[in-house]
């Protein structure tokens, strides 16, 4: 059924084109139908393909070549798709979660004018299209196309409300930071091309063992630079919280469930390269862990409902990289999946809240929403539990798998990981408690208008809640259930080479129980503290001391501003005013002025007096005589 592959990206593309071109003609329901329908269609095809893959129907390794994209000399870069276990899984996540979010959006964006509504859906479709390209690509260049494409869509959607210049700035920031990462990605691609002469996965991975470790390290590090950009890791993470400027479903889809996991997908895809480059692996693990901690600490003190979720996303992404870094590729992919469910759920829930609060996002003005938004409340709570890692919710399985692998790799990783997990539980329940428990603290007017969201919004919430609860059961560890880890079996062909190269030891049962116990206990304690502390008396005052540092995100933006933005601007000003205007151009004009000045002076020779003319002629004669008679060799 490989011939169906091209349909998967085609539907969203068509949706994009139709909605984009006919945005003034189509009514909102039509737009919504086309937009969501396109993704649903893709989902259906994805499911078919997934079943094929599951049944091992993968002719030609799942690779489908559509046409020759770029080819020169001996290098051919085909426009090819690859449907295998990894991509088919991601296809399901993208189209599935994507469809839910599209559906949700039809209600959420109802207030927009017709054409902006259509614009929104066309962007969203375009995003799905790009994301599918990213995942489906059978080589790094196609992946890069999707890679940049999702960046573009992210840019467009963050700046969706383009009247607000802060949003536009956030969009620009997101795009530029992504580009910095893309630079690394591109360099890696060139490196691969130079060393292997191909960018097709199968060939690259087949020939990778012939490359030296240092080459592989460079390649993988460069790829990872790309990943830090797209997946918001240190040092390129600051765009993601700002990206919350976009509509909330966008945050759910792009900045939580799909796009930001592109980096994980890429590393997982290139797992063999990383496995052969241990230094890069460590870097990935450490950066991931550091990001996880940093983002978690920041999240502790945020008061914007979406910002908290954003930092939580950054933190969870850090987890995934930790997983990749310690070689637990399956776990990372597993966490991508569960994270997609519960984080999408959380964002959509937050969206529901924001919708109800008339675009109020500050949790200090909320509280007690439990009774006004029952469905939202329940689903949100389930999401919180899932992310906090309480069994048997999905987050528990995936997160603990990563922590277990980290423990095997390095105990310190585990310790920090567990503390971070506790912090996660804490800030999530701080958020939950402040928002849903206690008394309503908003204006009377807001209170008056509080209402549960329409069905188009609650249905996705419910479905996602179900998935957030149960999604983890496809990866039940061996400890609980023999052969329970269905996902691991499913994905094993992808990571087989890596695992063969470097065995990942599963922790023995006792250790496994111990690890789980510690993390669950810590999480539970954190939850308890958070609930008790914030349900009655949320911290409404401005943070001070260390809290202020956290509230200000470790002053990272200010830091970047001081070391990158300001010097660049100064340099630009210097080049423009000094080097350009009074340097190079001055010289160029100076030549012209010099000629004019020379002319003004030289014409004085022409004094108009015969005597001086004769004198000069005689001098000339003397010079010529000297030249001719005495200066020749």
């Amino acid at each position, binding site marked *: 059924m490989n011939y169906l592959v091209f349909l998967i990206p085609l539907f969203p593309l068509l949706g994009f084109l139709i909605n984009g071109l006919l945005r003034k003609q189509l009514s909102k329901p039509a737009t919504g139908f086309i937009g969501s329908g396109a993704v649903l269609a893709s989902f259906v095809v994805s499911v078919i393909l997934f079943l094929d893959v599951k049944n091992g129907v993968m002719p030609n390794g799942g690779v489908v070549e559509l046409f020759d994209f770029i080819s020169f000399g001996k290098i051919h870069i085909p426009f090819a798709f690859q449907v295998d276990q990894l991509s088919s899984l991601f296809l399901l996540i993208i189209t599935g979660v994507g469809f839910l979010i599209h559906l949700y959006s039809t209600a959420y964006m109802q207030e927009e004018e017709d054409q902006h509504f259509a614009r929104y859906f066309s962007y969203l479709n375009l995003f799905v299209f790009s994301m599918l390209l990213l995942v489906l690509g059978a080589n790094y260049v196609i992946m890069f196309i999707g890679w940049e494409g999702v960046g*573009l869509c992210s840019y467009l959607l963050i700046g969706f409300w383009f009247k607000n210049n802060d949003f536009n700035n956030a969009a620009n920031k997101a795009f530029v930071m992504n580009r910095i990462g893309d*630079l690394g990605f591109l360099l890696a691609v060139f490196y691969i091309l130079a060393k292997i002469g191909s960018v097709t996965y199968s060939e690259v991975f087949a020939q990778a063992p012939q490359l030296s470790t240092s080459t592989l390290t460079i390649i993988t590090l460069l790829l990872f630079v790309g990943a830090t950009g797209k997946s918001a890791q240190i040092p390129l993470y600051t765009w993601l919280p700002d990206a919350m400027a976009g509509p909330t479903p966008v945050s759910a889809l792009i900045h939580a469930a799909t796009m930001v996991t592109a980096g994980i997908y890429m590393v997982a895809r290139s797992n063999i390269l990383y496995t052969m480059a241990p230094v890069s692996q460590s870097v990935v693990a450490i950066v991931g862990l550091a990001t996880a901690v940093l983002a978690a600490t920041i999240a502790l003190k945020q008061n914007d409902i979406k910002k908290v979720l954003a930092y939580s996303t950054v933190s969870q992404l850090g987890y995934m990289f930790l997983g990749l870094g310690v070689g637990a590729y399956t776990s990372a992919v597993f966490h991508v999946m569960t994270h997609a469910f519960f984080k999408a759920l959380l964002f959509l829930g937050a969206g529901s809240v924001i919708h109800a609060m008339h675009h109020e996002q500050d949790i200090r003005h909320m509280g007690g929403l439990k009774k006004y938004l029952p469905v939202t409340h329940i689903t949100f709570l389930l999401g919180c539990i899932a992310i906090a890692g309480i069994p048997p919710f999905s987050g528990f399985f995936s997160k603990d798998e990563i922590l277990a692998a980290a423990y095997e790799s390095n105990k310190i990783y585990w310790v920090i990981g567990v503390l971070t997990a506790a912090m996660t539980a804490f800030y999530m329940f701080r958020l939950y408690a402040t928002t849903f428990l206690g008394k309503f603290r908003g204006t009377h007017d807001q209170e008056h208008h509080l209402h549960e969201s329409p069905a188009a919004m609650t249905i996705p919430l419910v479905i996602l809640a179900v998935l957030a609860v149960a999604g983890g059961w496809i990866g039940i560890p061996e400890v609980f259930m023999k052969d329970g880890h269905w996902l691991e079996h499913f994905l094993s062909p992808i990571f087989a080479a890596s695992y063969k190269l470097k065995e990942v030891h599963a922790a023995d049962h006792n250790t496994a129980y111990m690890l789980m116990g510690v993390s669950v206990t810590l999480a539970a304690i954190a939850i308890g503290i958070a609930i008790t502390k914030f349900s009655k008396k949320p911290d409404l005052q401005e943070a001070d001391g260390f809290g202020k540092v956290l509230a200000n995100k470790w002053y990272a933006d200010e830091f970047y501003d001081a070391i990158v933005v300001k010097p660049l601007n100064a340099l630009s000003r210097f080049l423009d005013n000094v080097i350009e205007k009074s340097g190079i151009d001055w010289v*160029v004009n100076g030549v012209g002025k010099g000629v004019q000045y020379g002319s003004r002076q030289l014409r004085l020779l022409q004094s108009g007096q015969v005597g001086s003319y004769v004198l000069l002629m005689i001098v000339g004669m003397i010079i010529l005589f000297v030249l001719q008679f005495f200066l020749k060799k």
Partner: protein
Amino acid sequence: MIAVLLILVPLIGGLALFTVKNEGNAKSIALFASIAVLVVSLLGLTVMNTPGDLNCDLSWLPMLNSRFHVGLDGMGQLLCLLTAISFPLIFVSAWRNTYKDANRFYALMLLSQAGLMGVFLAMDALLFYFFWELALIPVYFLSSTWGGEKRIAATFKFFIYTFVGSLIMLVGIIYIYFQAQQSFDLKAWYDLKLDRNTQSWLFWLLFTAFAIKMPVWPFHTWQPDVYEQSATAVTMVLSGIMVKMGVFAVIRWLAPVLPDGFFDWGDTVSLLCLTGMIYASLIAIRQDDLKRLIAYSSIAHIGLMCLAIFASDKSGLQGTMMQMFSHGVNIIGLWIVADVIENKYGTRKLSQLGGLAQKDPALAILLVIIALANIALPLTNGFVGEFMMFNGIFSSGVTKYGVLDAAVALICIILAAVYTLNMIKKIFYGDSNALTQSGTATPFPVLASLSVIVVLIFITGVYPKPMLQLTNDTVDSILKYMKTSI
């Protein structure tokens, strides 16, 4: 036949236009002539592409052993196509503009097209020089007659500057002519083997002219002023096609003729290119004038092309050719938008604009696409060219610094994103102000030509194969003379 027609049609059209008095007629005739050129060019690409059709070798100056030898190879086809496509686009986009003495304006435009065609077609060095200079004269008149207040001085600087370069090149051409047994024939020049020292200094005689034309830093200072001051339609010709003359000339007339000099100076020139790219990109960031911003972005792009040529790599060269076409098309699109905005709002200052996306969403969308193509987003034409160029630079076999060059050059990609997005933001986003409140929808001809550009962007961006195939043989033969492995 095709080659001669490509020159003759615009030439005759241009000369005929001087006699036309009615402005409306002038416009139509110019458009008709330019479309005729496009048809000829397409004919050359498709049905009439035997060497006999594409080449023409007539006796011209028997005493100097120079022949009227014009012909089309892959690179020529590509650039002639660019030239042929650009002019109808320019004419259509300027359909609603009124120019004083319109007949002269359109006549000169067509004459410049003839000159440009000649440059791309010439297979004889003297003929090449002939057209090289001739293309400049109509543009000189165009830029000086129509445009901003300081146009005369700016154009004059440009003219003198390029004239200096051209004359120095002439010295080099004559020198090589004598070395090649008094022949101007391209083939004879390719087969010529000069000793390394001679090549080394000859290189600069030729390269200076090309560098000024492109322009490569630090020979670029004429460019922002001229682009800013000229009428925008003229700027399109200048930046869309004319600067390609320099790039083209390096590939055809410099690299294969003086390969040793080319290699010896490769690193030096690359350094200039890199400096220029970073420099221009940084300056572009703080430009408030739309035209100046595009001008500086053009410098950065051209720098990249030049850098890629000097990488002497197949990928780089093919990418450069691809990019010559893409950049030509894209930047014309940007200028069209700049023109529309200036006509509509009477200002090019970014700080005075804003919120146009509300008033004019069609224009906004088209500009965003073109701008993104300009910063080489995948699936646009810019990506293919830049990808291949970067790859060429990265894996260049002639320099030790290939990786470094590529890495530094990639920084410009980021900077390009910064200023391009800034530009989009300041023009289209934000709330509209008193000035932009009055905006009306963009006239249809402009949207039509922009749409054509967008279509081209995607066609060549998604399926670049035909273009790559077109230039493949040219690149191979040039590389053969450059003695590097293919």
